[in-house]
């Protein structure tokens, strides 16, 4: 009985959490459609989220592409399939590694900053001050961040994919000695626009997950500095795990519309 009630309590808490995140998303959507958009703040957030995250995304994408190329080459070389390295790496970068690595990096860098900033504002009554000045916190704080994330993350995914594939090409052709023409020909043959669509769509979904989880954590912070620390940790942990879990389901779902393999 105790086990059942414990499971029920966990399930109920999980549903309540989903409700809060969903409610925040709903309020944000209704604010956007009501035209309560502060374009100056959106641009500032794009600069912070998009422009500021480029270095971490480029380095992560490039070195993952490089190491993935090396490992794939080491295995494929035993089967004399060196020229297949290009398509394997490019498809993996487009469909999985690009969006997931970007999602994880953004959850760590941006999600943590968002929840810490909103959490600090919450515990120092700055959010109450906003409300007292007749400014809805969702309009002022969440809408600009959500729009900036929706614009920035898919672009960051594209950047991560591009630099991953560039690093892969350089490692394969300049370091490991794969013929450039074979590499490019096979890469073009097996990589399709649908692979990039899949990565970009995943980027959109991850942006939604990260921004609403992080904002929810920040807006519910309490108990001073300890509470802000807790909110920040939870934003990163929940955001990252949600990205990984959502990625599996997205892969299965999107594969219906964008099946892997040669499109013909």
């Amino acid at each position: 009985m105790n086990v059942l009630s414990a499971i029920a309590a966990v399930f109920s808490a999980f549903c309540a959490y989903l409700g809060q995140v969903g409610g925040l998303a709903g309020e944000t959507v209704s604010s956007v459609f009501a035209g309560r958009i502060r374009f100056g703040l959106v641009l500032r957030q794009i600069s912070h989220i998009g422009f500021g995250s480029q270095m971490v995304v480029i380095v992560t994408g490039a070195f993952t592409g490089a190491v993935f190329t090396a490992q794939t080459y080491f295995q494929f070389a035993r089967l004399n399939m060196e020229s297949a390295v290009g398509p394997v790496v490019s498809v993996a970068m487009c469909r999985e590694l690009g969006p997931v690595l970007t999602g994880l990096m953004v959850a760590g860098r941006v999600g943590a900053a968002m929840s810490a900033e909103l959490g600090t504002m919450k515990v120092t009554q700055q959010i109450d001050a906003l409300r007292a000045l007749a400014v809805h916190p969702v309009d002022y704080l969440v809408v600009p961040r959500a729009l900036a994330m929706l614009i920035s993350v898919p672009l960051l995914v594209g950047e991560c994919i591009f630099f991953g594939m560039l690093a892969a090409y350089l490692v394969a052709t300049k370091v490991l000695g794969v013929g450039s023409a074979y590499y490019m020909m096979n890469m073009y043959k097996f990589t399709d626009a649908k692979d990039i669509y899949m990565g970009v769509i995943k980027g959109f979904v991850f942006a939604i997950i990260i921004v609403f989880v992080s904002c929810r954590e920040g807006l519910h912070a309490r108990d001073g500095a300890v509470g802000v620390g807790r909110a920040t940790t939870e934003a990163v942990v929940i955001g990252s795990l949600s990205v990984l879990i959502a990625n599996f389901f997205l892969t299965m779902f999107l594969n219906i519309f964008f099946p892997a393999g040669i499109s013909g």
Partner: protein
Amino acid sequence: MSAVMIDVRDLVQRIGTQEILRGFSIPVIKGETLVLLGRSGGGKSVFLRHLIGLMKPISGQILVEGVDITHFTERQLEAVRRKIGMVFQDGALFDSMSVFENVAFPLRERGERNEAVIARKVDETLALVNMTGHEKKMPVNLSGGMRKRVALARAIVSPPEVILYDEPTAGLDPIVSDSINRLIRRMQRQLAVTSIVVTHDMVSCYHVADRVALLNAGRVYFYGTTEELKQSEDPVIRDFVDGRSDEAE
């Protein structure tokens, strides 16, 4: 008969298991300064937060110019909040903005786009609270008294009908406290606003109050003028006014 600006009726609020307000009722007369006295942790600030909908009561009514706001949504409350300015205990200034940006914030949010008008209004308001010359400073570089002055400037830059002050002199030295008290009085004279001041500072109370209420055990224990407060022989009132505790030395 004086007009009632805010009428609070039978307000009940509980935090955890503790009942903070137990049927709290009080009228706030238009154009007057009401000082709400009470012990620390007695629910004064909680009461103040209800007046602009930052907290919802368990039961009771808050009538602002005759309209009950207790069931208002966050969006509906925005119209009420434009009439009521609040000065938070620690100022609650936006720490990512300079003094100028903090004070300009309500103007920009209410649609003012002319930078010259914004600059003029901010300069005038900062002059009113004796903060001229500090426009570029960040809140972290201000003293407690300066933060409260800037918070007051932010609350009055777009003139409200009511100003709520949460412990305006708490933690300040007597001279800065006196300047804040004079400022509250000046606001009332110059802007003809209704003010509610939550405090346990008796000097401040005598300086700014038109009417005084004493909050005790979640209810209004005393409501009257400062003269009536001074003359009261009630032991609960005398203990608070004279600052006596039951503790043995």
